[in-house]
């Protein structure tokens, strides 16, 4: 498949080059259609969100009230901070105009006059690049008053975050945008009813919105034939860890994970075996290396494989990896990033981290494995947002699939009553 989101064309981030390859033509086409027709097109294409939850994008758009006295907002989530994920950054760098075109089309489809693009604070270099692209689009009349003479007006503003993983959660992002601490909100009410400043809001991921012009370009029928029928389209897979050629690859969904590792990322250094992979960013379930054959990179394929597609950030670990160290580091991350609103997450992530530290230092007892699992089970599902689940899943799956690794790290009571190390 020819890459469409990250095309291999020199200087594609410049507006002239983008236009000379048919850029902003889909905006013209969309403005000639009725807003409902645009939403319908996206709905029929079965595009699913690329931010982790795989929610059907067209359906999300239809939740926006058609008649309302309040202003409506569109919010684009560019706060990618999930360990293993680095795809949005490539869009900002290589193809910002595709994203901008997608944003304006989406704003038109939902009748939105104000759009915010929230980008994480660390990406200041890329924020400047995107700002340049937005300014160019303003200058050419693709954003602003009376776009291309259609009478439709919308504005796009960039908003810089300041370093908080939780702000990638949509309701926390809204609080952060309003100038508050990034605390997630209880749902319902959902953003489409009560979002930014209490007004109807839609939040889409950067990669999701970049798919919208592609759908209009090729038509929903052709788009829905790319990759897996239930989760179609091109997907950006970021491969990191123990591979020869790590990076972001644009592939159709439904591609084999083994192909991604061996064909795209050049295999494992030293031809070592794969001990484990994390398929969709650090919060998805970890998988044993032996079980990845035949598993495909899409929502259904990974569900069957016992994990989820997440943000398609594939982390590969070779046979020499110390998995206890890996899970301790992942849990430390969630402990650090928990916003502190819900007790199970705030306290539980800390407890898990301390216990895992004991495993790392060969100081744990055998019964600590079940205790750790118990803590994880009590976090899952008992918090306002999904960060609690995201912290619990890697620990649960690690214990389920690599219990032997934990057992090896336990102290064994010796006959003398003194405790000695097994290893």
């Amino acid at each position, binding site marked *: 498949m020819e890459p469409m989101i990250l095309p291999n064309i020199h200087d594609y981030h410049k507006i002239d080059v983008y236009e000379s390859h048919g850029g902003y033509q889909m905006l013209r086409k969309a403005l000639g259609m009725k807003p409902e027709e645009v939403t319908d097109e996206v709905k029929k294409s079965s595009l699913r969100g690329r931010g982790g939850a795989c929610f059907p994008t067209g359906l999300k758009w239809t939740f926006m009230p058609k008649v309302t006295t309040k202003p409506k907002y569109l919010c684009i989530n560019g706060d990618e901070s999930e360990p293993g994920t680095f795809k949005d950054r490539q869009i900002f760098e290589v193809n910002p105009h595709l994203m901008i075109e997608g944003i304006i089309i989406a704003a038109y489809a939902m009748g939105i006059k104000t759009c915010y693009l929230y980008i994480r604070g660390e990406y200041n270099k890329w924020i400047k690049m995107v700002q340049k692209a937005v300014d160019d689009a303003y200058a050419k009349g693709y954003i602003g008053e009376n776009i291309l003479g259609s009478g439709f007006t919308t504005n796009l503003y960039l908003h810089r975050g300041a370093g908080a993983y939780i702000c990638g959660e949509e309701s926390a992002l809204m609080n952060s945008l309003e100038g508050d601490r990034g605390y997630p909100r209880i749902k319902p009410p959902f953003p489409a009813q009560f979002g930014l400043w209490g007004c109807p809001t839609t939040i889409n991921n950067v990669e999701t919105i970049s798919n919208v012009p592609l759908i209009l370009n090729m038509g929903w029928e052709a788009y829905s034939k790319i990759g897996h029928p239930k989760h179609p389209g091109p997907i950006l897979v970021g491969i990191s860890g123990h591979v020869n050629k*790590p990076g972001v690859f644009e592939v159709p969904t439904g591609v084999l994970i083994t192909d991604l590792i061996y064909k795209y990322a050049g295999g494992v250094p030293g031809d070592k075996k794969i001990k484990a992979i994390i398929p969709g960013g650090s919060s998805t379930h970890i998988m044993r290396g032996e079980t990845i054959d035949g598993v495909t990179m899409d929502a259904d394929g990974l569900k069957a494989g016992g994990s989820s597609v997440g943000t398609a950030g594939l982390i590969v670990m070779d046979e020499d990896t110390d998995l206890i160290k890996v899970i301790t580091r992942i849990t430390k991350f969630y402990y650090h990033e928990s916003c502190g609103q819900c007790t199970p997450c705030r306290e539980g992530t800390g407890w898990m981290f301390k216990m895992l530290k004991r495993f790392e230092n060969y100081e744990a007892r055998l019964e600590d494995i079940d205790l750790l699992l118990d803590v994880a089970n009590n976090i899952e599902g008992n918090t306002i947002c999904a960060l609690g689940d995201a912290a619990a899943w890697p620990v649960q799956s690690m214990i389920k699939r690599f219990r032997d690794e934990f057992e090896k790290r336990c102290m064994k009571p010796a006959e003398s009553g003194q405790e000695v190390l097994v290893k």
Partner: protein
Amino acid sequence: MVHLFLLFTFYFCPDYLALLLFPFDLIMLSEQSLQRIEELKKRYPSPRAVVLEALWMWQDEHGWISQEGMKEVGRLVGIPPHEVLGIVTFYTMYNTKPVGRHKLEVCTNVSCMLRNSEKIVKHLQNTLNIKVGETTTDNRFTLVEAECLGACGYAPMLQCGDEYYENLDEAKVDKILSELK
């Protein structure tokens, strides 16, 4: 005597008295930033939304966000200083104490860890003769560990200012250190 007087004014007097006596001592944002804040306010239905950007401006101009900074930013966007403190401490990128001229943030999260970010941290600690979280005596470098910075495919990496230094090894780190004056 003068010293005592100064001490009295700054520590025991209400702010407005200090303001009356020493208006020249107030640290402010530059005229350009103040203008920019007013422009940004037009983008949002509530001026409060500008707080993150205003704090960024303060940090860019002064290196870190002091209590005076929080008060001033709070005044500009119309929220009380204690709420600004809550915001500053929530987000990890705001410095609540002075840092060196170059803040080196080494990612140690999972993808970087698998590619030996520990070695980079150790090398930096040995070369700069400081521990993580400390600043060199000449105030040139501050070394901190960071959570995932979104460069997993180019690990190990470190961030300094806006710049990302990727695919690091020890020789590359030495070169970067010599370039940052």
